[in-house]
């Protein structure tokens, strides 16, 4: 199972692309995804926060990930 992860704002700057594909065996949960991304891109660990969205909703660390999910890293938001 592979995963596609969309990147926005500073996470896109850090990773250098707007979508990254994680080949199989991909992380099975939100927590594993964050750990893997921080291992590959240590600058992600320096952010004030970095959430994960699954299908347009904020997801908890134990949330499972599937290939069909729309997954995104969510750095600190700053709208308004």
């Amino acid at each position, binding site marked *: 199972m592979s995963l596609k992860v*969309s990147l926005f*704002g*500073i996470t896109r700057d850090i990773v250098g692309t707007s979508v990254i594909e994680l080949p199989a065996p991909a992380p099975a949960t939100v927590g594993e995804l964050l750990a893997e991304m921080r291992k590959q891109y240590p600058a992600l660990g320096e*952010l004030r926060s970095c959430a994960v969205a699954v299908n347009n909703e904020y997801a908890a660390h134990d949330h499972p990930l599937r290939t069909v999910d729309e997954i995104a890293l969510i*750095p600190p938001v700053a*709208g*308004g």
Partner: protein
Amino acid sequence: MTPHLSITDQPIAVAAALAAVQTDAAGAVNAFIGTVRNQSGGRPVRRLHYESYDSMALTQLGHVVAQAYEKWPMLQEVAVVHRKGTLELGDVAVVVAVATPHRAESFAACQFIIDTLKQVVTIWKREEYEDGTEWVAAHP
């Protein structure tokens, strides 16, 4: 009472947002208009770049407005328009407009929506200075 929610790369039509919440059942229309300021923490700002994860931003905005309707059941109409892309000084970045029967709830609901929007809606702001740019709030 379907809220009018949008994210646009075009200049925001403030009058249209106010008109969208107009209803005969409301005696109060309250609006917050966020504009681009010329400094941030004492550092001169030249312009702003907003980026949005549109589908999630609209989903989360819908949640925020639903919470407002729960907290203020008398809330009539709501409009939220957020700009994205490059904005110059003085440009309107966001409009929140609400209509309620009486004014007290209109202030409270409007403030709740803009405050909560800033916490959960997936929009990012990059400030441009004379000597570089920075993503707002990204680092501790």
